C-alpha cells in the first residue's frame, strides 16, 4: 500500500494505530531509519491502557544527548503503512515540549519488508519481502 507524505517538510510523518486494553489510539510518528526500535510518547501508551507497572522490559537507549532508560510494552496490535504487527514491542519515551510528533517509527517495524520512499511523488510504499538475514 502507498501512503502519502509531504516531501517539503523536514521529517516524514506516518499515521499509525496502537491498540491497547482500553482504547485504540491513532498517533503520528516520524519515520526514522536511524532508530533501532519504535518509540511512542508515554502518555499515549497510558491512554491506550498500558500500565507502566506491567512493562515487559527495561532498556538503555543511546541518544545524541546521552543514555536514557526506557520501558518496553508489547502492544496488542500496531498498524502503520498497511502492515499490522501483533504483540509488537514499543518503547515508551517522553519527547521534548514543542515537538509536534508522538514518537518514531524505527527499523524494527520495517524488517522483512521492502521500504520505498519517493521524495519526488511524496509517497511511501511498504511491501512484504521476506525474512531478514
Amino acid at each position, binding site marked *: 500500500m502507498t*501512503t502519502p507524505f509531504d516531501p517539503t517538510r*523536514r521529517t516524514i510523518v506516518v499515521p499509525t494505530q496502537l491498540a491497547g486494553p482500553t482504547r485504540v489510539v491513532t498517533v*503520528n510518528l516520524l519515520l526514522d531509519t536511524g532508530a533501532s526500535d519504535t518509540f511512542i510518547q508515554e502518555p499515549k501508551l497510558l491512554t491506550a491502557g498500558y500500565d507502566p507497572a506491567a512493562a515487559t522490559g527495561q532498556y538503555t537507549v543511546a541518544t545524541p544527548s546521552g543514555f536514557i532508560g526506557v520501558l518496553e510494552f508489547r502492544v496488542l496490535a500496531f498498524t502503520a503503512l498497511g502492515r499490522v504487527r501483533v504483540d509488537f514491542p514499543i518503547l515508551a519515551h517522553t519527547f521534548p515540549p514543542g515537538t*509536534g510528533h508522538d514518537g518514531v517509527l524505527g527499523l524494527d517495524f520495517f524488517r522483512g519488508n521492502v521500504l520505498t520512499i519517493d521524495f519526488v511523488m511524496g509517497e511511501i510504499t511498504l511491501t512484504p519481502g521476506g525474512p531478514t538475514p
Partner: protein
Amino acid sequence: MSKVMTRAEMDAQFPDEWILVTDPVLGPDLFVRSGVVAAHSKDRAEVERAALETPSRHIAVWFNGDPIPPGFKVLL
C-alpha cells in the same frame, strides 16, 4: 451534541495545535478524514489529559502543523 468536522475544517480552524478527535473516520492510510473534536490546544499535555479522560474507545491525536518548530534542525 458535538459536531462532526471534516479534516479540512479542522486544519483550517486549529492550525499549529494538538487535536484530539473521538471516534475518528480514517482512510486506509490511517489519516483522519473526519470526527468529533474533543479537545484542541497548543499545549500537548492539556490534550493528553483530555485523552485520558474521554470515554471514547477510539481516538486520534495529532499536531496540526510542522512537527519540528521553525528554525530547528533535527537529529532524532
